[in-house]
């Protein structure tokens, strides 16, 4: 909008040649198709994204309960609506009519703000996710995506970072032990796994040469990035489970330890906001995984070969949603299968496993990519960096880790020794102290002399 205004304004001031340059430049700043959408289209899309997210949340909750139920040999909710499909809607409505309890010690303004801070970024993250190719809405050709930026993926990244504030502040403002612990854990966990998540995307940008989501999807027309970048995908998949606080990484709301975690003290609609945010986040990371690694809205292989129209019009939305639901199924599957990790194991995984693997992987991929760009034959460009990485990084690192553990133990021994050498600051009894037994017991015992000797003597002589 404003670019159009700026351009028309510039027409008054600037000579024709520079005006052309201006328009051209302005368009090269933006991703094609998103510079000048009419307002009514934007409004329709905004509403569409909002409704999609709310519906997906309601669906995902029922879906999860149903699937987990089946996995546990139950049937799950089946009362409200056909096959229980309206269960989550009913639950949501019910929450609105529940009493709202605000603990006395809560920090009221922050307590009030936290659920909003949690929910809003969750919605925003979806604004750059492409649902499909260019379609016609009421005769107007427009891409099936709310908006896109040259740094599109950063928007998702930024929103997921903002979401941490909601969680931290909710725990802080509750003025209560469990929420505080839960929010601390959640914050530490989210920022830890954000690093792994962010690093896992680097390889994708390297391949696509852009950070705009629509550009990344377009670049996957032939090969989905999950094939060449499987390591990145695996790391992304693991880290987003941590990022969204889902089982088996749901330490922040570990009900067996922390009751409800950061939202223990929340009730009524405020609680619903946290719930909503959690599920929207799940949908968002699934959509992002689809966009970055699984070809976005492109039809799976084979489908396109049989039916050439599969990648045009409104049909790609189907593939997109199917992929999201498949990923959500995996989320549910994980929850139904795996036990929760301990906190230190979890942090260990994030910092000591995912990050180094990620960095080495990025090094290897970058090298391969650059060498192939410079005209090396593919096998050579792939084999040499991999071999180098293996030789120069992985093997020494493994050896070093072994040695490091040993040295560390040695350091600890050193310190203990140093402790032992220093004169203690408090009186200690001598090692060979014989405690005199009380008189009454001595007279009562049958063989007092032998027992005294037995205590003083070493059994081995």
């Amino acid at each position, binding site marked *: 909008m404003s670019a159009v205004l700026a351009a028309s304004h*510039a027409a008054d001031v*600037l000579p024709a040649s*520079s005006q052309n*340059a*201006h328009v051209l*430049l*302005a368009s*090269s*700043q933006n991703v094609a198709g998103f510079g000048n959408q009419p307002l009514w289209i934007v409004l329709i899309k905004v509403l569409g994204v909002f409704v999609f997210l709310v519906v997906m949340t309601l669906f995902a909750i029922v879906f999860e309960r149903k699937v987990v139920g089946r996995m546990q040999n139950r049937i799950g909710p089946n009362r409200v609506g056909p096959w229980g499909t309206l269960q989550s809607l009913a639950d949501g409505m019910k929450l609105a009519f529940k009493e709202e309890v605000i603990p006395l010690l809560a920090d009221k303004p922050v307590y009030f703000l936290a659920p909003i801070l949690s929910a809003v970024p969750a919605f925003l993250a979806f604004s750059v996710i492409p649902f499909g190719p260019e379609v016609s809405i009421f005769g107007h050709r427009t891409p099936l995506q709310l908006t896109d930026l040259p740094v599109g993926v950063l928007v998702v990244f930024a929103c997921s970072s903002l979401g941490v504030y909601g969680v931290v502040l909710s725990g802080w403002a509750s003025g209560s032990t469990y929420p505080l612990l839960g929010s601390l854990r959640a914050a530490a966990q989210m920022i830890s796994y954000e690093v792994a998540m962010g690093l896992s995307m680097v390889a994708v940008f390297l391949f696509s040469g852009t950070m705009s989501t629509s550009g990344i999807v377009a670049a996957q027309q032939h090969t989905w990035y999950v094939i060449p970048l499987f390591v990145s995908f695996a790391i992304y998949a693991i880290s987003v489970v941590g990022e969204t606080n889902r089982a088996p990484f749901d330490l922040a709301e570990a009900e067996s330890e922390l009751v409800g975690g950061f939202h223990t003290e929340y009730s009524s609609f405020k609680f619903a906001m946290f719930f909503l945010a959690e599920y929207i986040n799940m949908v968002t990371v699934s959509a992002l995984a689809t966009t970055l690694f699984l070809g976005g809205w492109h039809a799976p292989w084979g489908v396109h070969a049989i039916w050439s129209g599969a990648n045009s019009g409104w049909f790609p939305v189907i593939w997109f949603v199917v992929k999201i639901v498949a990923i959500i199924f995996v989320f549910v599957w994980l929850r139904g299968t795996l036990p929760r990790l301990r906190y230190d194991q979890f942090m260990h995984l994030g910092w000591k496993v995912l990050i180094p693997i990620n960095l080495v992987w990025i090094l290897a991929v970058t090298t391969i990519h650059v060498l192939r760009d410079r005209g090396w034959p593919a096998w050579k460009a792939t084999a040499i960096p991999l071999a180098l990485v293996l030789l120069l990084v992985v093997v020494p690192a493994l050896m*070093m880790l072994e*040695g*490091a553990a040993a*040295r560390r133990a*040695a*350091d600890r021994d*050193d310190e203990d020794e*140093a*402790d032992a050498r*220093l004169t203690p*600051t408090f009186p200690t009894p001598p090692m060979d102290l014989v405690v005199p037994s009380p008189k009454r017991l001595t007279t009562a015992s049958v063989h007092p002399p032998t027992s005294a000797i037995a205590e003083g003597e070493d059994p081995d002589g």
Partner: protein
Amino acid sequence: MSHLLLAETAPIHAPSVAYSSLSPIFIVLGAALVGVLVEALVPRAERYAVQMVVTIGGLTAALVAVGLLHNTAETTVAGALAVDGAGLFIQGSVLVLSVMSVLLIAERSVDVGSAIVASAAVVVGSPTDRRLARTDRVQTEVFPLLLFAVAGMLIFPISNNLLLMFVALEVLSLPLYLMAGLSRRRRLLSQEAALKYFLLGAFASAFFLYGLALLYGYANSVDLPAILNASKASPKSDVLLYVGLALLLVGLLFKAGIAPFHSWTPDVYQGSPTPVTAFMSSCTKIAAFGAIMRVLYVGFNATAWNWRPIVWAVAIASMAVGGIFGLTQTDLKRVLAYSSIAHAGFILVGLVALDKDGIASVLFYVLTYGFSTMAAFGVLMLVRDADGEATHLAQWSGLARKSPFVAAVMTVLLLSMAGIPLTSGFIAKFYVFKAAFHVAAPLVVIALIFSAVAAFYYLRIVVLMFFAEPPENGPTIAIPGWSTAVALTFGMVVTVVLGIFPQPILDLAAKAATLVG
């Protein structure tokens, strides 16, 4: 608007980097990284020795590299770095003096362990702290930290790009903030010094950055030559230019410890471990003056008539503050701190000249002052009582009776700082004043007056050492280990030799007095 956009969308080109010209920086940074790895991988017992080898080896190698580069005059990394005579002279000075400060840090015989704390992060006064204070453990991270700071100091005076200069400023400052808090004795004072230095330094950095932003607004570039061209040609209002320069100077003057941005100096010099103080007062000052010189001479050559009064003002303020407040101090470290503020004022006098003589005299001055102050702080480490260094003036009275040698060394160094003939300080002052005289005669006269004022408090200490009665339970003179002995001897010899045969170094400075822009 449209050419701004053009700049953003222009295709990216890889800049050409003259790796060989920048090799001193790479060597120091590489040594610093090795130092960090040593911290990570070498067992604690051997760390100290290994770190010493890595640090001194790295600094010496970098010094050799600077020597090999001596004829270079080029800009590299897309004009962001200028390897030229003045820059290399500053780099060489920083490297020599940093080797000396490493030698001072390496002193382990006068105190348990060294002048550096065993573990900086432990709560002061806690049982662990007391236990560690008695061990000879040392926070050996001080060596990589010093190397990182030196790397920043090598980049700082050769940056022709203000953004890079800012990065270098941070690289040299952040390790210094930490190093200020590493004193083994008087932990609380040391931590206070670190915090003060950090907070005020962050402020100064913010000023620098803000000035940079304004200059970018003015010249549409952060390269100094581009700013110069813009100031020559532009019909635009100069407000942005001068406000930008003023804010930029605040950041730089802060680093150099020049009044009115000197308030951190006495506290930080006093609280920091003495070898680190020596490092700060010599190397940081040299690097900061290198940067100030480059900014004023390369970026603002054409607008000298407008900034000269400012430099006049801060030079006078600095000499006055250093001279007058120095008189009232009772702690020797603080006296030296105020002395450094006064000296910064004298160096600024040389900067006013704005010609080759000015550059050469400033280069010579910072070098000689660096050696004198380094050695003076080294002597300070040797005079000790039960609480560590005995820095109170009263404790120094009658020192000559206890150790005529130490008192004599200190006297020579103080005389050099006062600018008495036959010491390097005299030659340095003489050339600075000579260079400035033809453009700023009144300023030189004022500087001479303040030299006399400052000389008074140096001489007061000399009189105290030789003619006063020693106190009841006065300090003892520690026997220095080999490293301190080497550093002290070197500093002392340079101070005297440059006072008698200054010509080779003067020639070198005159030859080096070129700035590539």
